């Protein structure tokens, strides 16, 4: 923000300055527009949290209803892969934060580089997720009526419900990661083109907020699903 407020005197920052920076007719200034966009994004992040909430609530309710089953079913998950993904996402959040800072300082090279690493991490996350999913398809620990792992069913009669929740929660999160990749690639192309500078980096910062939220959801999903056993 600080860099943004001093955008009029951008010579001090000796970063890259976007040539012609317009603001929409209903805003007083580019700063006004930026502040509004930022508030809108925070409200969007808030609704995202609530969007995930029913699955978390359902998970908690069913977990306490069928404690034994969920305990046994959670043991089926590979916590090592989960931990690897957690680390990958944390790194991606770090590079994303660096990308935002680079954009604020008008450092085009660092911006593109950090966006690139973020995208790479996001793909890494999805690849690990794919490995986990394919394993589950292989052993039959699938949602609801698709569940066909009799050994687990014998010790955990409610395992199908656990995997319903597992697939829905991680699936919805994975969808957010995939959408994030799309946005990040768009940012990366624009950063290469020189669309962002000290006086304009709104999309980078907004995507940063989104990406941290996606990370945060995983920070809750990981212990709830993988570590409870």
């Amino acid at each position, binding site marked *: 923000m600080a860099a943004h407020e001093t955008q009029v005197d951008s010579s001090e920052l000796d970063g890259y300055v976007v040539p012609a920076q317009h603001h929409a007719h209903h805003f007083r200034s580019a700063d006004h527009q930026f*502040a509004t966009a930022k508030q809108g994004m925070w409200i969007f992040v808030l609704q995202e949290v609530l969007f995930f909430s029913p699955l978390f609530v359902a998970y908690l309710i069913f977990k306490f209803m069928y404690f034994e089953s969920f305990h046994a079913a959670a043991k089926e998950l590979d916590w090592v892969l989960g931990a690897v993904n957690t680390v990958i996402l944390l790194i991606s959040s770090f590079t994303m934060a660096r990308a935002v800072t680079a954009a604020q300082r008008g450092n085009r090279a660092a911006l593109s580089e950090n966006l690139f690493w973020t995208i790479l991490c996001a793909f890494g996350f999805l690849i690990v997720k794919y490995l986990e999913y394919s394993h589950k398809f292989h052993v039959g620990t699938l949602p609801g009526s698709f569940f066909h792992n009799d050994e687990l069913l014998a010790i955990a009669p409610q395992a199908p419900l656990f995997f319903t929740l597992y697939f829905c929660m991680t699936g919805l999160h994975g969808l957010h990661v995939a959408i994030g990749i799309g946005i990040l690639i768009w940012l990366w192309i624009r950063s290469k083109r020189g669309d962002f500078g000290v006086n304009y980096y709104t999309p980078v910062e907004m995507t940063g907020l989104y990406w941290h939220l996606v990370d945060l959801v995983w920070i809750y999903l990981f212990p709830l699903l993988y570590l409870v056993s």
Partner: protein
Amino acid sequence: MEHSSPVGTNYLNYPKGIWSWIYTLDHKRIGIMYLVSTLFYFLMGGIFATLIRIEHMTVGPGIMDANTYNRVFTYHGTIMVFMVIIPMIPAAIGNFVLPMMLGAKDVAFPRLNLLSYYIFVAGSFLGLATLFFKGVDTGWTFYAPYSTRTGSAAAMMVMAAFVMGFSSILTGLNFMATVHKLRAPGQGWGELPLFIWAIYATSIIQVLATPVLALTLVMLAVERIFQVGFFDASLGGDPVLFQHFFWFYSHPAVYIMVLPAMGIISEVVPVFSRKPIFGYKPMALATFGIAFVSFAVWGHHMFTSGQSDFANKVFSLITVFVAVPTGVKVFTWVATMYRGSIRLKTPFWYALAFMFVFVIGGMTGMVLAAVGADIHFHDTYYVVAHFHYVMVGGTLMAFTAGLHYWFPKFFGRMYNEKAGFFGFLAVFVGFNLTFFPQFIMGQLGAPRRYYNNHPDFHELNLLSSYGSFLIGLGFVWVAIYLVYALVKGPKASDNPWGSATLEWESTSPPAMENFRHDPKVTHGPYDYVALERK
């Protein structure tokens, strides 16, 4: 600041061409597009309502069979809730009026605003497309497990509601940012018109509650398509969980419907009483009080669902609290009228009707809030009558009040006042004739949603049906004289009612960027003395 539209043009005729409407980012045009869409769906929902009432004019089978009847009341409910009452005031009137009341040129995110509109259109088309795929027969509440098993197109309708939910969320987000960031110089939170407060509180509910419904509907669709067991007891799920999730949204949604209506009444009453609103701060606080409490009362829809006695009592108690801020509002309107110099124009007639029927709707709501009474009244016509008194008598009357009040601003024309009064009379009398008998039927135990009613209720049913025809005629009449006014009505002045809020400082209809000069707030939204001195 300079403006780009030529002098003498307005938002309706500049720029020209159908594409300038389809791609428009102007909040006024988007508001008018919402207005046309919701009015069209209102007509559809009304036709379904009339079909229901015709069916009930005969004791046995009437004009349709039982399965068709289930579909007809489902479409009536779904269309009226998701396509009419929820978007009608915030998205149609709000879109037009809210930025102008703030002295802004547009909402915070105009592109998002247009996107919300098209999301709404896509969602509503998807919903109506179910008509061609066996229809939907679940009722608008989509209760599991029936909705996950029925052979009708429930999944498609559920996805339609999901899509329309996003329109609602994005509109709420947009309005919140607009109120925070785009107020005119000199307009603090204490100088906001109460309609803005109402829309702001509504937006908070839209942003916080709608995502929960959205995901719940996804869960329902997943359940239906893959039989995965969220809500299916045979797979370890819990159907009551669906009810909890559903009402966690749908009860606050009731206030998405009624808070903007109250906002309109708070604008109309002071203007036509020529008196500042009595108790501005309590009114604004009451708006937020209702929004706040609305999140903690959803269980009162589920007194007979088998939730614990303790939960029943707590939800019953909290529900009663809703009456406190609501009472503050009603008393405030009445106190505003006291010793005012009242002008009985059409918007004010509707506002008066609102207060009358809303109190009946609210008081019967208190009866339903009491667990003991609700066990008796649950799923009877008493409930139907109660929520129609609040939704139709409340929201729809207030919407009609707002439509007449802002009509000169929207279109720059005046409607005929006498015609307006007769329309009002038909709607008001018809409304009470339709729904008051349903209170009596409900009290006597007539169950709702039944295809055949007991012969004992025949006379009451007939009365109710005749009333509904009168409402229908009333609204057709309103449509006729408003359309006539659009074409042939006398030109309206910039501020025909002598209102003190900012939107009346623009021309009627407003120019493309709303104000020829950036407006400055020099007096409060209800300060008529200062307005006349100016």
